[in-house]
């Protein structure tokens, strides 16, 4: 168990993570598990009972997340409860522990809860995919027709639902329970809570499993919908992952390119030419890729494509102000310092360090960022190669 002791927050925040393989055949079931685990438990046989218990425990927060790390999925249970020094209730900690234990270990699965989970999941996915921006990003990955996890949807596939049975879910639940749990805590956990968490924590070593995507091919697709503007997503492979020497330079390359309002994409596409309101780039560190997304008019697509390529070229040729590099570095450093004010950012960092077997302090990371040079960033940009492009275009040009 990893604990950051601090009185900075009024809550104690707990992250319990289980690592499972990221596979096409099981990812939808993993997402269904999220719905089923909170529907019913042995002690809280319906949603009303659980809702009352959470409220009565002074707003104990409970949530699940399913996240991809290369060839692995992390199934995460999160809890947040107000530190007991703020609460004048003798049974408070007992209630907190009971609720956490019930949710994680005593879910009741039956046909009704499975059907409900399928229904809620299906309607949620439909809503997500109706959003043009989310759809564009998902499709840009899916069209990458390579044997690589980058094309898999971490949200799962509604078309799988009909074949998933109660037995499948029970087996998955049993599997998740049997696998090592890794516990991360931020706050000042009380002895009874620590004792409980210690009983579920495993000291099994975490092993990362990932590989950078690499291909000479290029994948593209265009679709049209009755929407107000084109949502375009470009995926660039860079073959730089979290364990490579160029990892920190790549973070800064992404920042210079399009991570915020001081970036080249923001300046050239939005500010100088007014082609869009929103443009940004994001690193996928376990797949070795950068995703660029923006909303613009159909008539500007070719200009935008040229501009994106031009900015990558500029970075590789070091053709931008030194000031931009320094600002990108200091913004990123500010971001990782500010992350210390967010409990689940702290737990995420603790997990990553354990997964990647890094003995790295905050100062170490800041130092690595400070040491990134324009030449390093240029090297990273030279690695970038367009892998896929997806365009969700507006059907009509409405002015």
């Amino acid at each position, binding site marked *: 168990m990893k604990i950051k002791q601090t009185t900075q927050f009024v809550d104690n925040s707990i992250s319990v993570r289980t690592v499972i393989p990221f596979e096409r055949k099981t990812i939808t079931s993993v997402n269904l598990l999220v719905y089923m685990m909170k529907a019913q438990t042995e002690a809280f046989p319906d949603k009303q009972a659980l809702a009352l218990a959470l409220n009565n425990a002074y707003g104990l927060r409970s949530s699940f997340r399913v996240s991809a790390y290369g060839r692995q999925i992390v199934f995460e249970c999160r809890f947040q409860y107000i530190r007991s020094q703020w609460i004048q209730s003798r049974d408070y900690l007992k209630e907190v522990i009971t609720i956490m234990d019930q949710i994680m270990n005593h879910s009741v699965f039956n046909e009704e809860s499975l059907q409900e989970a399928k229904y809620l999941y299906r309607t949620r996915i439909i809503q997500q995919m109706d959003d043009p921006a989310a759809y564009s990003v998902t499709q840009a990955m899916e069209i990458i027709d390579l044997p690589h996890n980058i094309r898999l949807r971490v949200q799962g596939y509604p078309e799988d639902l009909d074949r998933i049975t109660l037995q499948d879910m029970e087996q998955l639940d049993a599997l998740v329970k049997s696998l090592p749990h890794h516990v991360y805590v931020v706050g000042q956990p009380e002895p009874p809570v620590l004792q409980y968490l210690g009983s579920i924590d495993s000291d099994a070593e975490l092993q990362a499993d990932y590989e950078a995507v690499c291909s000479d091919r290029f994948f593209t697709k265009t679709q049209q*919908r009755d929407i107000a503007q084109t949502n375009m997503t470009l995926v660039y492979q860079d073959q730089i992952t979290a364990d490579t020497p160029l990892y920190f330079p790549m973070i800064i390359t992404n920042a210079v390119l399009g991570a915020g309002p001081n970036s080249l994409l923001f300046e050239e596409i939005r500010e100088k030419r*007014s082609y869009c309101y929103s443009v940004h780039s994001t690193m996928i560190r376990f797949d070795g890729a950068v995703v660029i997304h923006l909303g613009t008019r159909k008539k500007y697509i070719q200009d935008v494509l040229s501009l994106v390529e031009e900015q990558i070229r500029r970075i590789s040729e070091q053709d931008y102000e030194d000031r931009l590099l320094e600002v990108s570095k200091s*913004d990123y450093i500010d971001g990782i310092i500010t992350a210390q004010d967010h409990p689940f950012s702290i737990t995420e960092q603790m997990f990553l360090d354990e997964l990647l077997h890094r003995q790295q302090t905050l100062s170490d990371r800041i130092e690595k960022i400070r040491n990134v040079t324009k030449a390093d960033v240029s090297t990273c940009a030279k690695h970038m190669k367009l892998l896929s492009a997806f365009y969700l275009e507006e059907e009509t040009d409405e002015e």
Partner: protein
Amino acid sequence: MKNELNVKQETLPNGCQVILVRKPGFHKSLGMLATQAGGFDIKQTLNGQPITYPSGCAHFLEHQMFHYKGGDVTDRFAALQAQTNAFTSFNETAYYFQTTSDVKKPIDLLFDFVEHLEITPQTVAKEKGIILSEYDMYKENVEQRLMKETWRSMYKNHPLRTDILGSREDIQNMTVEQLSRFYRNNYDPSRLIFIGITGKETAPLLTYVRENQSAVPSHLPGRIERLIDPEPAEVVRPYYEDQMDIRIPFVAVGYKLPVEPDEKKNVRMDAAVQMYLDTWMSPLNPEYQTWLDRRILTSAAGAECEFSKDHAFLFFFAQTQEVDAFIKIVEGIIEDMKTKPLDEAAFRSLRSMGIASNIRSTDHYESLALDWIRVKTDHVSFWENLNVLKTMTKTEAEEIVHGLNYDQKCVTVMRPKK
């Protein structure tokens, strides 16, 4: 145990209100400078004389403000190791920076750029394309469209019916003169509120801000007030339907409520009604499971209310194939709200939640800053606001909710395109 918040407040000689909150142990500092003017400020009075602006003026100006000394002020903040952003809501426009480094220079820069306007026909023309792209982005969001049309159905005159971004026509036709006039009337120091939230000592910062503003007098020739045209009690459109590129319909059932001019009463009404909504439209209600079983609700469903001195409403929304069944559910809930008491167990659990919210509220910078801005513009006490659930009794909540007039209903449906 009470959550102690270390707060310093002062109104400066030029009228600017300053609030500084100390958060020991936190790395980040936030400085926010807001004007008490936003999307609602399409009409105002200056010393009683009416003024009209194009819709979207506050928001367009927010975009323009970042032009500073021939460049983008974002770059200057970046050089100070601070990140900057801004937003326009219905009631305010706010500019803020965040940093883990020195705060004094960013404070200087924040005041300097907000208290100076630099726009030209070229900067205005350039911004139109960006704002129209933002407009298109929101047009694609079904929940935003649902809300917008619900307000249009409710309100004939109130600016809630007008997009904060403005109409396409007003965006395209915006001029330097219109923006400058809005600026002159609303960005005077007497209309500004500064919130600083930091782990650093706040007494020296208060002195610093005081000195910064000592050379910035108020120029406002009189009193600026928002002008909201009288609003009929009735809704405009009892029913509205449109189509979007979605696969499952979204429906909203809204109730236009009578207005209460006393903001302190509004705070309590908001809390009382929200308690009922949290009880009825959530798993706290045993019927909620029945609605799920009948596939009327999905995870995109809820209810909200808002009470202020010039408007009051509540609405229920859902993503659902069973539009008519959802409307019936809402009508049933409203009937219950007219007479039924709050469930005792649910009430007690919501009180505990309220206490928790009180304790937690101070850990979140941005929402804390916004809470302070809102209490200053609404002239209510931050502490009264924070403690309302603690002091609310079941009887009081029931009396408030039973006494409301739910006659004015409107339904909005966004359906999939055929």
